[in-house]
């Protein structure tokens, strides 16, 4: 009898000892004293596999966090599956994450079609679809989809900034647009049109698209030159943006060029295109560019570089996706730290929607992360910059639409 009493007494004592702390710990599936399970899908295979490096850099970041003890004493168990950029696969993998792996929430799922496919499901299941990796504008809709939140500045906003700049500086120009024939390209085009308002029809004289399967965009550039445009809106992913910059210069077409911010890396885009051919290009940015010499001694960038060398040595330092992954992972780290011991899905969304002017040091100075109950767009501000042949010169104010 006595042998049984002691453990029971011990249990009672423990239970009564700190009622306050016991009551504060709240867990939803995926969270426990030991770990936080986070789900993700990324295209590790297939035509978009170039973006798979984002998932790899995020995995590396959480490995580093775990080596340092995790968040509030809990390890991050980051489960990432390949969806080959195919929406049916995304649906299958996300269902696996939610229904079988019991993740607390899903983070940085990549691609507009992939996220559209799971949009309704996540909100029906009341599982956070957090910091989705796309620049579409439809993720900022807390009223109808309270469980979905984006992260990066959206493409339409960026294009409207260019439109505003054109209207302010050169209101009577002819604009030619090169865009990728998918949601990313079309979103930019829409933003430009919306930003120009009723002047759009007159000012945009040519809209030429390209497919990812096109070997070159030379024909498209020739078409743009022939249209008489003197402003060029270059909406291409790095390879095609570089081809466009080079071809435009080579055929003697020297328009004022606005470059979309997916392709602004000096190392990955402007150098292959030709630095002398890229002088004067205008873009917006929110992340620091590792290949831009002005950040060579920046402590934040150096910290990122040593992180990459230790935890993701196979990653290309010139690939902006790796800096992107690091920065968004740190954003999530902040959200989870704010959650403390209340790791319910509701609280995760609540904390994600309570970031007030948060700054992460791999963002450009002046760019901050702000969310609220009606504002599910964490980063809305961007900085305009112009390429001077060697580095990006920031000009104007940080614009936060």
């Amino acid at each position, binding site marked *: 009898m006595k042998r049984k009493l002691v453990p029971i007494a011990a249990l009672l004592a423990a239970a009564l000892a700190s009622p306050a702390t016991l009551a504060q710990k709240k867990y939803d599936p995926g969270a426990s004293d030991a770990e936080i399970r986070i789900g993700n899908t990324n295209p590790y295979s297939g035509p978009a596999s170039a973006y798979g490096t984002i998932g790899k850099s995020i995995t590396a970041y959480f490995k580093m966090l775990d080596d340092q003890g995790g968040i509030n004493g809990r390890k991050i168990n980051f489960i990432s599956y390949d969806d080959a950029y195919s929406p049916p696969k995304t649906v299958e993998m996300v269902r696996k994450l939610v229904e079988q792996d019991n993740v607390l929430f899903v983070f940085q799922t990549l691609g507009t079609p992939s996220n559209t496919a799971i949009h309704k499901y996540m909100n029906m299941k009341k599982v956070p679809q957090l910091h989705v990796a796309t620049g579409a504008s439809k993720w900022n809709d807390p009223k109808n989809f309270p469980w979905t939140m984006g992260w990066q500045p959206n493409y339409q906003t960026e294009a409207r900034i260019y439109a505003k700049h054109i209207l302010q500086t050169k209101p009577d120009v002819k604009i030619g647009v090169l865009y990728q024939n998918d949601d990313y390209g079309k979103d930019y085009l829409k933003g430009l049109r919306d930003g120009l308002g009723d002047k759009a029809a007159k000012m945009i004289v040519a809209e030429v698209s390209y497919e990812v*399967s096109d070997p*070159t965009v030379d024909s498209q550039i*020739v078409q743009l030159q022939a249209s008489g445009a003197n402003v060029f809106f270059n909406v291409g992913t790095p390879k095609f943006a570089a081809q466009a910059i080079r071809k435009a210069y080579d055929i003697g077409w020297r328009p004022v060029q606005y470059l979309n911010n997916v392709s602004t890396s000096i190392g990955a885009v402007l150098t292959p295109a030709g630095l002398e051919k890229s002088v004067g290009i205008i873009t917006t940015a929110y992340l620091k560019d590792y290949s831009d010499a002005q950040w060579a001694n920046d402590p934040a960038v150096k910290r990122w570089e040593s992180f990459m060398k230790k935890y993701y040595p196979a990653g290309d330092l010139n690939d902006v996706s790796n800096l992107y992954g690091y920065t968004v992972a740190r954003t999530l780290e902040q959200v989870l730290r704010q959650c403390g011991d209340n790791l319910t899905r509701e609280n995760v969304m609540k904390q994600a929607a309570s970031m007030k002017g948060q700054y992460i040091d791999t963002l450009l100075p002046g760019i901050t992360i702000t969310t609220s109950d009606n504002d599910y767009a964490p980063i809305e501000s961007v900085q305009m910059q112009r390429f001077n042949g060697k580095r990006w010169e920031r000009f104007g104010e940080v614009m936060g639409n």
Partner: protein
Amino acid sequence: MDAFIHQVLSGLATGGIYASLALALVMIYQVTHLVNFAQGEMAMFSTYAAWSLINAGMGYWPAFLLTVLLAFALGVVIERVVIRPVENAPVLAIVVIFIALLVILNSATGWIYSYTIKTFPSPFPKEPLFGNTYVSSHELGAIGVTLVVLALIYVFFRFTPLGLAMRAVAQNPESSRLVGIRVGWMLALGWGLAAAVGAVAGMMIAPIVYLDPNMMGGILLYAFAAALLGGIDSPGGAVVGGFAVGVLENVLGAYVIGNDLKLSVALGLIIGVLLVRPSGFFGKVHVTRV
């Protein structure tokens, strides 16, 4: 008018790209009667090997030659190790092997080299010929190289005993064996030569489109169409087909249907031509006996 000329010239330049890979496809077809869907990825992989050599300090031409030899070896090894065990399997099974090779090479290259684009040097001068703004010196040089390779292939198959032996093996492996031709090694040799032609194509293409693991996907598509348009057993036809496809694509996109549909319409037109001339422009019409 100026823009039209520009589109045509630009189309010829791009067509040169298709022609060079189409030559590799025709090469492998002439020896094995199979179209190797992994030819583009093999060429891309060889080009990355060249890039590594040049990055390590080797000069352009030594790296070029070494890469061509390595690609030849790769082709031989793939034939002996991967294709030979399934020689007698149904054709579709071999096609699946090609798909597997494509996927393996693409994925492995992306893993080893990452996906950021790399510049690949060109042996031709940077300044355009006569200062023109239509085609770069490299594009002209690449077309020249393609024509030289075409000539070499033609001479090889038409005038050398080895070429004759290879053609015999493709047409009638049984009889070839009876006359003493080592069929297995002919096939391996054919694969090696096709891989070498592909490597040359890759090294000519990369300076134009930038080197990245997915660079050959779209090109293979057009090269396949070009090779069939010209006649799958005619190297000259493949080159003509390549130029035709390049110009067609440009003109369709700029003047007829817009860039949104030019891929579909270009392919549709090519199929249309094939319906009228099922063996392509210069292909041989095959007569089958019951």
